[in-house]
């Protein structure tokens, strides 16, 4: 039962989050992939935040998303993308724009970055297209 919880939560979150606009099929698939990655961290006690950001990745470009985090918490930022995207990467920057050291998970069109902010405040999550062509992606995050 306990092992089913991440799946249940993924579906639950998938079903209830607020779309900023109507999502394309590709974004729905990307979001499912991002939630799959995030669900793996649920086994370590991370709670998936009921919110997401979906967009389009372009070659040699990245998408930056601003988040506000609390010192003391641990975070994982998980992203999923769909064909023709082949490989993505997730990285985190502090409010001055300096890249912070993160743990990373990379598996082709899925990636995640984890870290514990030393200070509360604004951080920036970057999702980069490493290989492939323009395509949809989705970002979710979890915390504990």
């Amino acid at each position, binding site marked *: 039962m306990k*092992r*089913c919880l*991440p*799946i249940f*939560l993924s579906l*639950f*979150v998938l079903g*209830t*989050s*607020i779309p*900023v606009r109507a999502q394309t099929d590709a974004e729905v698939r990307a979001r499912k992939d991002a939630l*799959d*990655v995030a*669900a*793996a*961290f649920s*086994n370590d006690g991370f*709670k998936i*935040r*009921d*919110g*997401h*950001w979906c*967009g389009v990745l372009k070659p040699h470009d990245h998408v*930056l*998303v*601003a*988040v*506000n985090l*609390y*010192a*003391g*918490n641990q975070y994982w930022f998980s992203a999923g993308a769909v064909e023709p995207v082949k490989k993505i990467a997730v*990285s*985190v*920057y502090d*409010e001055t*724009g*300096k*890249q*912070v*050291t*993160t*743990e*990373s*998970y*990379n*598996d082709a069109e899925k990636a*995640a*970055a984890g870290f514990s902010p030393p*200070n*509360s*405040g*604004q951080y*920036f999550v*970057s999702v980069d297209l490493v290989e492939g062509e323009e395509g949809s992606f989705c*970002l979710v*995050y979890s*915390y*504990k």
Partner: protein
Amino acid sequence: MIRLARLGMLAFFTGVSLAVGAEESGHLTADQLAKAVRSDSISIPTPGELFAALGKTGKTNWSGQYRGPIPVTYQNRAQIALNLGGLIADGFIAVEAKDSQQIKNIGSDIIKLAKALGVSEKLLGRGNSINEFADNNEWDTLQEELEATQNEVKLSMQSHADQDLVILVTLGGWIRGTQVVTSAIIQKYDERSARVLRQPALVHFMQSKINEVSPELRGEPLVKDVSQQLGEIEKLVSFPPDKAPTVEDVRKVNEAVGKAMTEIQSKEPPK
């Protein structure tokens, strides 16, 4: 079963592939940072995230942070939206306190306020779920349910052309959450706890969202007052990153958000 196996593999792969991946050489320009996406659904943390951070530094007397019942018969839609956010934050407090009865009471009030705004009938089902999870002491699931309830309220507002009220729900939740956290920190001051209060960009973002709502809503006395107070609160939570707020700093934030909360829950809106 296949899905379970996939997740197991993913968890295993994650476990073995963890590495200190990023290099510290990367730097973004101010222009790049300014163009970053900012959205209510991912850039504004939930009360649950704030309470989780506070909980790291020791035991918090969550039930000591309860407030008395608030009126659920407001006539003003902006006031209802602000109070709805505050009530949802109260729900998160009750989850932290693991208090089934309190969660049920708050869940019932949330539904009453939401119905007053004419949001989806589906919310009635949420009320039943909250009661069921509270009876079974399913605290993690309850937290998810509260987040989902908040999002469903916002989604319903969007579909009823009440988009402008969404930020007020978020703001009400943040003000109530901050009131509770500052109060808990004052009761048992600890530098690490106090560091959670540093959120100038977050307050600035909420202020900018309020500036985007319709002139009619922005001109309503309560919204106008809270918006003005938010400007003051932004200054109070703008601590340098390497300095923990003192207990006096925390007290000032507590007084400021307390004043806003009193106005929000008052039966008589400002004239």
